[in-house]
């Protein structure tokens, strides 16, 4: 995936940037991440100018080293917000380096980037082949459980009861499903 700022280098990290009062999440290269951090530092309100001591010029190389170290820290801080799979813990850059995902949940964790890659590889984003019944039922149950959790959090209790009943029906053996005996 290309950097969303320079559109040239490969994106390596994710940053948050305010644009017209709205915060955006951008996938950017290392250079653009540093540039953004520098820009933000420069835009920050500065203290009133103090008189320059006579020996200040001789300290410039030292200042340079301090600034480099500061940028390195900023860089690392930016990387801390790198996308990580909550299930297996691998980061986006680890996946990119090895071209291998960490676990099935990575498909959801890195969905935005993976959709682009998968579409490029296969020219499709929709499976049309074999459906393993057990896995399909497991997936359906997981979706209902997620929806139930959301409904409870949102205090939508009628919806939650309906979802709970659906989950119960899924758990019943096939012969006992449905309202008619």
């Amino acid at each position, binding site marked *: 995936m290309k950097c969303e700022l320079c559109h040239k280098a490969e994106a390596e990290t994710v940053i948050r940037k305010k644009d017209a009062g709205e915060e955006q999440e951008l996938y950017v290269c290392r250079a653009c991440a540093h540039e953004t951090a520098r820009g933000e530092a420069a835009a920050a309100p500065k203290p009133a100018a103090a008189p320059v001591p006579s020996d200040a010029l001789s300290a410039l190389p030292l200042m340079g080293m301090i600034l480099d170290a500061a940028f390195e820290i900023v860089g690392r801080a930016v990387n801390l917000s790198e996308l990580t799979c909550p299930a297996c813990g691998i980061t986006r850059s680890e996946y990119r380096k090895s071209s291998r995902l960490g676990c*099935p949940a990575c498909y959801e964790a890195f969905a935005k980037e993976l959709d682009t890659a*998968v579409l490029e*590889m*296969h*020219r499709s984003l929709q499976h049309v082949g*074999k459906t393993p019944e*057990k*896995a399909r039922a497991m997936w359906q149950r997981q979706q209902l459980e997620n929806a139930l959790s959301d409904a409870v959090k949102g205090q939508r209790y009628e919806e939650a009861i309906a979802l709970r009943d659906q989950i119960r029906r899924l758990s019943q053996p096939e012969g006992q499903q449905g309202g008619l005996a």
Partner: protein
Amino acid sequence: MILNLEAGMLSKRARDVPADGIAMSCRVRLARNLAGERFPDWATERDRERVYVKVRDALHAEAPDFLVEPVAAYEEQEREVLCEAHLISKDLLERAAGGGVAYAADGSVCVMINEEDHMRIQGFANGLDMQAAWQAADALDTRLEGHLDYAWTPRLGYLTACPSNVGTGLRASAMVHLLGLRLQGETEAVVRGLERMRLLVRGIGGEGSEAAGQIYQISNMDSLGLDEQAIVQRVSRICAEVVRQERNARIRLIQESPLVLVDCLARSLSVLQNARLLATSEALEFLSAMRLGASLGLFTRMKVPEVDKLILTMQPGHLQKVSGMTLNPEERDEMRAEYLSRKMTNVKLKC
């Protein structure tokens, strides 16, 4: 006089060039993973061992006739033999804990455990009978899915360690011998055409390998967006067209450049009969020519199945297994030359 004789003998052969044997074998592979488990490359030894046990138990329940063993249970030579027979990959050989292999007694189906994915179910068949290979792999997969929780979603299908296999997880491939096209200088055009049709073309050893002996592996690139039957039929249809082109190249070779063909066959036979040292790749080049000659019926006492057997048995693992010794590369080259020379003693070129 000799040339006339060659031309007469060969022109007769040109009318009867067989397509059989150009496609050597085919395979359908299904990549499968278990939900809630890390993919093998990122898994700990304990994770991989756990997956191995789950898969082994499922195989014991559904395919009791299969031999299921950890890769580590095999001696180094035996592992090489399995690899040379294309039952397991080099990647699996290097996998320490949790790597396993299971195969049916008749060799029609094999499962690699904890290779790139938790399972790689492979169905094999002769020639271009890709339907048979697909049915063998599909039947085992369907039986196993009742015992294992596959990682699957309605949108992306079977989830795999590398997104290039996601969807059906299916790779249908055929191994084809294209020496006629090489001698006619047409291989590159055919390979480019296949790549334009979104097919992968690789050497005999799979990903990243050279097409030694002009033996190519052709397989599908897309595994998502088409169903399994559509993929298998498409690869099969295109490979049949490649076989037709190779056959035409062989006919033209006989009609237009008989001397080139006969020279190639005579040199190859001569080297195999007389060489004292032969490396695997070198031997494969000469056996490739022998295979072409045998398929055209131009050798006495040498048919295509015999050449195919030699292509397998002259490889390092098989050679050492037959000799019962562990050999260094130079000793292997010596033994290979001696072995092939013995097999070629009574073989003669008919023209």
